[in-house]
């Protein structure tokens, strides 16, 4: 379930623009014929288990110099029989349109559209130590009660936050980490000290 955070920050106007359009079409096509969650699972695995480990394959598929018949042949050879037929057809259509370079954008858009459709919230939880299963499930329960929605938790371990946890939902960050607390304390103390020095200055001047 680890969402690829770094590809979010790459400025790729084309895939940002194309992604939602293809994603909508894919979800609509799958929705009428079969199990959407299974297809999404496969799509996720395609991106993270295949492309992440075989970057050469992704580069070859994204290469506009390679004719699309060739790409379709490769796709058939690699995935026929193992992959849901609709998803494979979809990949072929994307290939024929020369949009395989936007495949990650399409996946991201499809995932967020699917979340929206089933009323799921994605939450990124950052901790200093890996969370155990019990803590994770109790956190999930709490968040579900809070948002009144199904919650999909992604975890991230970052030792620099020292302790506590940071919860990120969409663009909102709830920072309960020790590092964040120390920063707040630093700001508040500096502001207070500055005011105190100013008061002192004016009393010295008079």
């Amino acid at each position: 379930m680890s969402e690829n955070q770094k590809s979010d920050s790459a400025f790729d106007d084309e895939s940002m623009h194309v992604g939602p359009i293809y994603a909508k079409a894919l979800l609509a096509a799958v929705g009428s014929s079969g199990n959407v969650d299974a297809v999404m699972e496969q799509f996720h695995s395609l991106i993270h288990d295949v492309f992440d480990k075989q970057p050469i394959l992704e580069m070859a598929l994204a290469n506009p110099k390679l004719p699309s018949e060739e790409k379709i042949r490769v796709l058939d050879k690699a995935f026929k029989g193992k992959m849901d037929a609709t998803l494979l057809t979809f990949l072929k259509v994307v290939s024929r349109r020369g949009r395989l370079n936007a495949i990650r954008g399409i996946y991201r858009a499809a995932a967020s559209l699917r979340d929206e459709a089933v009323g799921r919230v994605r939450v990124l939880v950052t901790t200093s130590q890996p969370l155990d299963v019990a803590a994770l499930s109790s956190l999930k329960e709490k968040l579900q009660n809070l948002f009144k929605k199904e919650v999909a938790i992604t975890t991230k371990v970052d030792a620099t936050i020292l302790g506590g946890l940071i919860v990120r939902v969409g663009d909102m960050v709830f920072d309960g980490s020790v590092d964040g607390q120390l920063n707040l304390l630093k700001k508040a103390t500096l502001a207070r000290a500055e005011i105190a020095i100013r008061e002192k200055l004016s009393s010295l001047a008079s």
Partner: protein
Amino acid sequence: MKFNSDEIASVIQAEIQQYGSTIDVREVGTVLEVGDGIARVYGLSNVMSGEMVEFPSGVTGLAFNLEEKSVGVIILGDYLSIKEGDEVRALGKLLSVPAGDAVIGRVLDPLGNPLDGKGPVNTTITRPVELIATGVAERQPVKEPMQTGIKAIDAMTPIGRGQRELIIGDRKTGKTAVAIDAIVNQKGKGVKCFYVAIGQKDSSVALVIDALEKNGAMEFTTVIVAGASSPAPLQYVAPYAGTAMAEHFMFNGGHALIVYDDLSKQAVAYRQLSLLMRRPPGREAFPGDVFYCHSRLLERSAKLSDALGGGSITSLPIIETLEGEVSAYIPTNVISITDGQIYLQPDLFFAGIRPAMNVGISVSRVGGNAQIKAMKKVAGGLRLDLASFRALEAFAQLGTDLDPQTQSKLDRGYRMVELLKQSQYQPMDVAEQIISIYAGTRGHLDDIAVDRVREFEIGLLNFVRDRKPDLLVKIREVADLTADIEEAIKSVISTFKASFR
């Protein structure tokens, strides 16, 4: 001055003890690309236009463009410290600058940070940089004079408190000099002055500050500098920041004078930002809302109603033209916004007529309301006379014989032009201006040689200052040209003339 470290330590200790653990809730986005003073940010889905954002390095920015998939941010500060992937945080507040008495006498950048090495700006008062101008009901007509101390301007294109008078001209025609003289003349009049330098060489700004200091004007003046090496966002924000500082005095019943030197450079900075943000270019590649950029700035100069304390901001925007081309985009825009313009011409400047004001096309739309009665009586018709003199002068160059009446008109004109010359940093009091101009317009200079007119004027004014100081006081107090004042002026001129030569 010494600080007691124990005392500061106890303050910090108290703060730590009082500190309650709270969860920091913030809205964030990620930097997609950065460069040329702007950043494109993914996320920040609830940010509002004009809201402040903060980068991890502590640099702040303003949300400038809200697009479907990203937010365009202008960076106020060092954009080289920002990297792709940085977390950007919405601060939920508007950009504001320090204001109040603490900014007076300081040299600041557009964010209110000191540049003069005199320590931090010691104030807790801040004002938002962008503010909607006061409405019709909160204003009153401009009627109080704002003396610039320059004879030619105070007599022919008078400026009132709350007026916006454009100073326009080619490079090297003395635009800044006029504005600096106006600031120097505010000494002792309780007017706070603000000089906003936009896109200028730091060396010329240093010269201006030096001139202000030498003439004792820095005590009531704030200089806001966004030099040529400042990033475009700071140059764009500078005039709004200066106005915000001036507004503090206006809304507290005081008077302020603000000089924007110059707005054409600010328009260029705004054009750069807009083009980088991919807003569509219009005429001369300026964005469509460059008019609004200047109109909302200059509308903030106002004369408030008595109910609001009657404070005012007078502004002197400066526009540099190219080869006298006033019909370019930015000059026409600003001419149409302001309440008149002072047009400075290079040929007059090089002919030694300084200030090089072209009387024919310089106007003040507030007019006589911004003059005291005595000045109105003395200088009435002077503008038209001088304009007709210019026409006659051109005609006389053809070498035709002139009838005595025309010749006398020409002679008067030559003397008036001579009389209206004035050296830099020597602003004149209104009473002295009245005596000088009275001598000129009523023909008392007709028998003085043209090249001795200035000498005569200086002598006359020294004579009045030494022998008849009560006359100056009386003119200032009565502020009208009553019969006995006129008699007194006449007799002073004739007594002095007897001793002249």
